[in-house]
């Protein structure tokens, strides 16, 4: 949620694009990984003295694993990111005769990859019209304005069904249970099957594709989300060419792990669009490991 303050500066972005090789990793995965990447990460992270309670944050290191800078705070960033990048870029001298490591394959027993032929959809969420508890913390303003990010996989056979004007139950269930919620401050706690009180969609032919309309009611315990969906879907030559969809409605309650939540009902919008090739496409849905994520086709 602090990515906007940390990486929101043009000069910071340019420094990272030109003077560094940036990599974004899951802390828990690298801490546990029994491969060369995990060893490299732990070697770098263990050189950072502070903070002691977590290894989350930022590291600038040589390819050999020597830590040059390491920090996590302040949050939101106050210019520290740009300053440290500039200092590191100015002082860095590549070692003489250093060799590029050969094998770059990861050995992750639990890692999933995008299923063959699947389309990857980028998902964003945003809260508005919310009454928040009072807080004097500067960080809280960042929290309230943050955008949630995730991914949705659309399997090959589901793309084919969309091309025939049909939304398969498995896809609708995945979208509803794993993506329709407020993940602006923490990963979304997936909805239990019994939380899906209503989830109806239809595709109507329009131009080269379809207009998607739908309505959803999710409710479980103290939290819920009632929303309408609208979108444009297009499949061409067996490939998903457009999946521009949005859900908008009222949400309430908070899921576990989220320390801040608005009072009462608030507006929650969730947007979907095809992920661009590269890191965005390869980023996995947060719940991809859940046994019911691809449970029904």
């Amino acid at each position: 949620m602090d990515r906007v303050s940390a990486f929101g500066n043009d000069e910071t972005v340019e420094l990272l694009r030109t003077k560094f090789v940036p990599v974004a990793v899951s802390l828990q995965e690298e801490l546990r990984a029994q491969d060369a990447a995990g060893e490299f990460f732990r070697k770098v992270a263990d050189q950072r003295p502070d903070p002691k309670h977590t290894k989350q944050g930022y590291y600038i290191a040589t390819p050999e694993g020597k830590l040059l800078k390491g920090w996590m705070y302040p949050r939101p960033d106050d210019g520290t990111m740009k300053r440290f990048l500039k200092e590191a870029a100015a002082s860095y001298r590549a070692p003489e005769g250093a060799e590029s490591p050969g094998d770059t394959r990861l050995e992750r027993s639990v890692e999933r990859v995008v299923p063959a032929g699947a389309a990857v959809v980028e998902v964003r969420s945003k809260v508005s019209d919310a009454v928040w508890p009072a807080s004097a913390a500067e960080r809280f303003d960042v929290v309230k304005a943050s955008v949630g990010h995730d991914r949705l996989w659309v399997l090959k056979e589901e793309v084919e069904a969309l091309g025939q004007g049909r939304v398969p139950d498995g896809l609708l269930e995945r979208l509803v249970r794993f993506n329709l919620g407020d993940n602006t401050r923490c990963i979304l706690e997936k909805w239990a099957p019994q939380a899906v009180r209503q989830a109806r969609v239809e595709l109507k032919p329009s131009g080269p594709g379809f207009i998607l309309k739908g309505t959803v009611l999710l409710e479980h315990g103290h939290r819920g989300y009632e929303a309408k969906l609208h979108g444009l879907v297009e499949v061409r030559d067996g490939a998903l060419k457009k999946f521009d969809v949005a859900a908008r409605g009222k949400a309430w309650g908070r899921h576990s792990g989220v320390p801040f939540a608005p009072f009462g009902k608030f507006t929650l919008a969730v947007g979907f669009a095809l992920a661009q090739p590269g890191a965005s496409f390869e980023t996995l849905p947060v719940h991809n490991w859940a046994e019911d994520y691809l449970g029904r086709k």
Partner: protein
Amino acid sequence: MIPSLALSALLAAAAIPQDADFSADEFAKLHPALMKSEKWASIPWRGNLLEARAKAAQEQKPVFIWAMDGKPLGSV
């Protein structure tokens, strides 16, 4: 697996009231706002630390590592 017939019925496509209060015009405003490009996403992030290390050695640059719980590029 969720073989719940009840859930299946709830998920089944059905006629949607055409007066649903989320119009095409509203969608045309909301969707681009939600999906607009973000500055941090324009950074050429890699997800493989070994690939990043190899490229850094090759280009004689330091590695910048962003580590967080979950997936930095895809969660929260």
